[in-house]
């Protein structure tokens, strides 16, 4: 999300070229060509056996790493995990396998040489600006920007903030799943979670899906695991399960969202780290941006920044005008009762079409009208949310009719 002209965010942006290729049918080789000595030092520090092992799912012992300062190149070779040309080989020349390496965040490498919590200017700004808002304001702004369906993208009422202060939580999701009710052989070491947290750039929100039905038979988060997370840049923990040792949890520097408290650990083990998870009706992918406060947790879709902040300010400005009018000498009960739906909003934001009080969201003309995936969420941008509802109704009727018609033309 760096603006043009900002410091390069990824190795690919910093490098002259990051490339990959077969080295014969059984080996793959990656190279990062860096433009100057400083960039080479960053690449040199960044590209470790651990990093390549993590990115390419290959054992560190199988790697050959060549550091060539004269050419400002770091080269890594390893046996192809999938033999060239076999059924599951999707990259015959291994020509696109540089991308995971090219996408590695450079600031992660710089951080190795700096204090743990040093972050890039971009992420500091984004985090700070989001932390000035509460979830309802940001949720309204997301609705106005049409960046998500209105009924999704936030935690439902099944979890609450068990501990935490008034300050909003902001961070990137690191995901994990657990089970506790019955014993099982599917447990993995908690170090996978710690590694995933350490490798995520900036503040982290741990999202833990309890797979038991019903969830909450045993707690992952208690004094011990909580203390370990407190030693990492964790800004919050969210689970559909339950937690314990609440007195200790209160002392940790992050809020905890859970279904409630419980007594036991039971057969608790982590079963996955880094998968998509669903917690309290909210589906989260690793790296998703999350925001939370006492109301709950809000998912900020890709592309929400930076428009969401501007939109939230616009909404607050509009609301403030109405509040001011209600307190001004111009206010009278007659005027309030005479007011047609939406005229307040018109007065406040200058839009032509009236909108009902409470729905006075004015969308900036530059705001996106499509979902990140390209899904069109509304036909046009307008102040009138009722028009939007109408369009959606028409859309639903039409799509339903099409699907019914489709039944008669089905081939199978």
């Amino acid at each position, binding site marked *: 999300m760096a603006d043009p002209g900002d410091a390069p965010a990824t190795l690919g942006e910093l490098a002259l070229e990051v490339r990959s290729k077969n080295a014969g049918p*059984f080996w793959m080789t990656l190279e990062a060509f860096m433009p100057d000595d400083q960039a080479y030092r960053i690449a040199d520090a960044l590209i470790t056996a651990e990093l390549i092992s993590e990115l390419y799912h290959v054992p560190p012992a199988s790697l050959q790493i*060549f550091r060539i300062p004269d050419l400002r190149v770091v080269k890594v070779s390893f046996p192809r995990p999938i033999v060239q*040309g076999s059924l599951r080989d999707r990259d015959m020349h291994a020509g*696109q396998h540089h991308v995971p390496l090219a996408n590695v965040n450079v600031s992660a490498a710089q951080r190795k040489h700096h204090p743990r919590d040093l972050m890039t200017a971009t992420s500091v700004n984004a985090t700070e600006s989001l932390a000035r808002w509460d979830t309802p304001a940001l949720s309204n702004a997301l609705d106005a920007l049409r960046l998500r369906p209105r009924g999704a993208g936030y935690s439902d009422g099944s979890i609450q903030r068990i501990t935490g202060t008034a300050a909003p939580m902001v961070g990137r999701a690191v995901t994990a799943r657990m089970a506790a009710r019955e014993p099982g052989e599917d447990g993995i070491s908690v170090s996978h979670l710690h590694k995933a947290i350490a490798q995520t750039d900036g503040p982290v929100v741990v999202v833990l899906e309890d797979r038991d039905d019903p969830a909450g038979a045993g707690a992952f988060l208690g004094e011990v695991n909580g203390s370990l997370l407190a030693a990492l840049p964790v800004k919050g923990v969210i689970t559909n399960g339950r937690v314990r040792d609440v007195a200790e949890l209160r002392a940790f520097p992050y809020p905890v969202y859970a279904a409630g408290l419980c007594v036991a650990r039971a057969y608790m083990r982590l079963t996955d780290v880094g998968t998509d998870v669903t917690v309290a009706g909210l589906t989260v992918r690793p790296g998703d941006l999350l925001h939370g406060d006492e109301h709950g947790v809000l998912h900020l879709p890709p592309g929400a920044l930076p428009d969401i902040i501007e939109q939230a300010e616009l909404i607050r400005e509009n609301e403030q005008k109405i509040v001011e009018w209600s307190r001004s000498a111009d206010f009278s009960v007659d005027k309030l009762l005479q007011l047609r739906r939406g005229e307040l909003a018109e007065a406040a934001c200058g839009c032509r079409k009236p909108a009902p009080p409470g729905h006075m969201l004015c969308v900036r003309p530059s705001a996106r009208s499509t*979902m990140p995936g390209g899904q069109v969420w509304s036909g046009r941008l307008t102040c009138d949310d009722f028009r939007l509802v109408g369009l959606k109704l028409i859309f639903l009727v039409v799509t339903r009719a099409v699907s019914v018609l489709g039944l008669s033309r089905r081939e199978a």
Partner: protein
Amino acid sequence: MPDQSGPPDSVGILVPSGMLGAGFRPETITRGISLGADVIAVDGGSTDSGPYYLGAGVAKTAEGAVRRDLRLLLAAASSARIPLIVSSCGTGGTDAGVNWVADIVNAICAADGLDLTVAKIFSEQRAGQLIAELERGRIHALPPSEPLDAATLGRCAHIVAMMGHEPIEQALRAGANVVLAGRATDTAVSAAFALMRGMPPGPTWHAAKIIECGGQCTTNPASGGVFARIDHSGFTIEPLDPATACTPTSVAAHMLYETANPYTMREPGGSIEVAAARYTAIDERTVRVEGSRFEPAGQYTVKLEGAAVTGYETVSFAGIRDPQILASIDVWAGFLDKTLTERVASVLELAPGSWGGDLRLYGYNAILGELETEPATPREVGVMLLVSAEDQQTATAISKLANPLLLHLPLPTMSYLPSFAFATSPAHIDRGAAYEFVLNHVVDTDSPTDLFRLEITNG
């Protein structure tokens, strides 16, 4: 072309392009000849495009493109009275590949009235003979492969051995003007003539490695040919396109290209060691390289390549644009996988392990699969289903069972059947036999020419 006197001061090598049939401008050749080329060398093949070409014994390049390149090269070699060497003929370097290129050469010579002696060097190996070598303990695995077994050799559709420079030198000494070699190391084609003329092995092998991909070692890899002059203390290299340059960086960086280790490269008779090489700019487009070494090995080893049929494949393709499906594309793909497996088991009575399917979601995560770091909700997805089975009939039958699923499979939560976008009718294409490289082994030989067969005809 045997050497009559002592070694010359230097040998000039013209490499017109990285691969025969890739094309080059006629000026490339005129320029190279005017620089005093003593030999024209060009690689005709590679494993890089996959096992099919070796397995099927078919060339990757179009016959017309190979003929066009050869006509220019044969005319230039003939009029300059210098040899033309082509290695790894027909992409895989099979006997069929050598004969295919030889037929083209003979037709050109006949049509253009060229009187040239053409040598063919065959490098294809019989499994039976190699099994005998295996039993004598003379075949060894290269990392990361396991030791070889006889069954694997028996499964190969074609096996080739990668020759060093010696069989090519043998053909040149026997008077060949044109050498058409089967599978050879990428470097042997350029090194053979210079070594025969007494150039030192260190600079010769290093130069041969640098020029093997043509313009790849220049500032403009698309520009085509390069010219190297090897002498007794090193070599100089320049592009044949006057608008392009070789720089110390572009030349040194080529040691990285398609190599696992940029400092040392194994040839049949030893290793090229370039860690101590120095790269100096002579002018703005010519580079001098000194300090490269060649370390002879205790045992001469020849690398084997083999491709075996892994099954018969059918590929199906459908497009999805529906945002509702795309929002849960992983769920959909899992559902398709499961449904297809069940249908194949119940309808065709095939157990899940007896056939293979690879469902690829192009536009979502097809290329990197589980290595994908940033899967986002896609705008559209091309669904490719690749099915592999023991025979074509079964692969086709499985794909036909998959057809209605690729057309209509809903999400498990949907109450109606969607219809997706087939790109073609039918939506599937039979691919025929599919191959896999199964050999990554070397065989010890007593003589560098033992495994190769030379045939010379006067054109």
